[in-house]
């Protein structure tokens, strides 16, 4: 213990005597640790928000649409596909026994007016009565529209929480009031709870109307996305198979023809995300391993110089009773301190850089203690591995020869 303090003291002296040299030596470690911490912080941040947002899409929902969410650059193929219409919605409803809910969704952006108040670029969504169950969005006031209101093209609507707040004064009762959505008058029957945003897009700035009402105004050929939800999550794969069969039948595809529609799910995005982060992770491991290697060699080099410079000191210590282990430990502690100084600089740079990147780009970042520890353990092992040779060299010096070293 006394000896540990003595080692720390000498390490401090010898490092502070050659401050610039020490800092240059740790450069490799600094770069390695900076890389580890920056990338792990960014990946962790991304993972946290992305998995959070993905789960808002519903873990248990298939999205049938014209375009795949993850495309492999074949947009010209996808563009030629037929739009998805109510025909497909009906086919899934009729032919998929595992489907609990089938919800068509069709969007447009338009203006909304109430009295003298007017909102621009509001998302107007045509859907059916099962929207709340599949999207977890329930009315806070009033009610959602019913099956018969959908089927009879009733001029009713449900407001998103944001639209309600912007059109009405606080506490004002919106139910039964009429608003104009791109010219047509619809009656408010409900207001949804606040839902927040997904991928930076607010889900409160919307007006929901029965899909037939929407299509009466905008036409029947606008491409629909169909949400399909099974009775229970285990049926998701089976439901996907049933959906593919139903759609191929209704579209009269021959067995040799490829699907001309895409079935997406949160899982697809998650897989893609994992693939991307894996590549990032591999790049990080490569860069940091390389720079830690360079750092390790740098440390070995500087320690060899230090041992030579301090040969006489080692001789003195041995003459007054230092054992081989004392000298070994003294130099290993010096190596570790050198490495930890590098880690500290690297960690500050890494967290700073991650913070900076997430401040100037939309990428989120999370301070990862795990990354810090990982870097510390990793670089300490590297430092010890490369430090053991010079330290051993010092420990094995013959006392007399060391004392007479010029």
């Amino acid at each position, binding site marked *: 213990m*006394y*000896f540990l303090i*003595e080692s720390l003291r000498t390490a401090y*002296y010898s490092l502070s*005597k050659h401050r610039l040299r020490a800092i240059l030596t740790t450069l490799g470690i600094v770069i390695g640790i900076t890389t580890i911490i920056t990338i792990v912080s960014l990946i962790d941040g991304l993972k946290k928000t992305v998995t959070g947002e993905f789960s808002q899409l519903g873990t248990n929902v298939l999205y049938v649409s014209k375009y795949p969410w993850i495309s492999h650059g074949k947009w010209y193929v996808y563009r030629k596909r037929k739009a998805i219409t109510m025909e497909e919605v009906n086919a899934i409803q009729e032919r998929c026994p595992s489907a609990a809910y089938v919800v068509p969704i069709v969007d447009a952006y338009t203006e909304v007016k109430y009295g003298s108040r007017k909102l621009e670029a509001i998302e107007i969504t045509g859907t059916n009565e099962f929207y709340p169950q599949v999207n977890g969005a329930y009315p806070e006031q009033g009610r959602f529209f019913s099956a018969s209101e959908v089927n009879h093209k009733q001029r009713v609507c449900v407001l998103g929480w944001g639209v309600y707040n912007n059109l009405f004064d606080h506490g004002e009762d919106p139910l039964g009031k009429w608003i104009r959505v791109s010219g047509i008058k619809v009656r408010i029957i409900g207001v949804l709870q606040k839902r927040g945003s997904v991928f930076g897009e607010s889900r409160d700035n919307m007006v929901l109307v029965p899909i037939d009402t929407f299509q009466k105004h905008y036409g029947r050929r606008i491409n629909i996305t169909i949400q399909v939800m099974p009775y229970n999550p285990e049926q998701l794969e089976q439901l996907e198979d049933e959906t593919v069969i139903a759609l191929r039948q209704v579209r009269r595809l021959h067995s040799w023809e490829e699907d001309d529609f895409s079935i997406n799910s949160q899982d697809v995005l998650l897989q893609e995300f994992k693939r991307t982060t894996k590549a990032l992770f591999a790049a990080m491991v490569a860069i940091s391993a390389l720079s830690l290697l360079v750092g390790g060699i740098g440390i070995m080099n500087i320690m060899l110089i230090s041992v030579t410079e301090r040969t*006489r*000191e080692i*001789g*003195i*210590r*041995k*003459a*007054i*009773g*230092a*054992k*081989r*282990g*004392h000298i070994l430990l003294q130099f290993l502690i010096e190596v570790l301190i050198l490495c930890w100084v590098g880690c500290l600089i690297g960690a500050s740079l890494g967290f700073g850089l991650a913070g900076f990147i997430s401040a100037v780009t939309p990428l989120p970042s999370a301070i990862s203690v795990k990354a810090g520890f990982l870097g510390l353990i990793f670089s300490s092992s590297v430092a010890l591995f490369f430090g053991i040779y010079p330290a051993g060299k010092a420990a094995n010096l013959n*006392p*007399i020869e060391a*004392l007479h070293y010029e």
Partner: protein
Amino acid sequence: MNHLIELSKINRIYKLGELSVHALRDFDFTIDEGEYLAIMGPSGSGKSTLLNILGLLDQPTSGDYFFNGQNVTTFTESRLANFRNQQVGFIFQTFNLLPRTNALHNVELPLIYGRKPLSLRKKLAREALDAVGLSDRLHHKPNELSGGQRQRVAIARAIVNEPQIILADEPTGNLDSKTGAEIMEIIDNIHHKGNTVVLITHEEYIAEHANRIVTLLDGRIKSDTRLK
């Protein structure tokens, strides 16, 4: 009959490639407890080689060395280090203090390797520095001290662990005669308190401080005289 130190047929041969130097030849020698011994002889006669072997800094090529009846030539590295720490106090011509390290800490070093607790360490180191008259220079670093003061720090370091034997290799060799005389006074004092002292010197008047003078020539004893 029971000698503190007994050397029997000690040889020390340095190998320099083809060449080999026979620094000590079939060296038989004893030192008793409480002796004050001066070693003299021309340059290259083997004085430092003998002293280094006595202090276990160096090992003989052949022969036996008994210290208090124990054959120390069989010691492991760790026991050798312990021995240097506990039983021997070295004083060098060139002081050999740690640079950038103040007097107090230099004197504490043997206590650190001897695993003495901090409070005791400080106390013993201060006492040792007090004994050599340096209580007012505790926090001076070697480059802030004169040659004589540096040698005093080195002496304090040599005595702080209360070793059985003090080994001094030309302790006044780098000092002017007045400072040298002061240093010799301190070494005489150490001897008066009961320590065994072995001292290498080229100067008759310094050798006269001792009560036995051994003269070496070509790795052998040329004369061995007891004074007083």
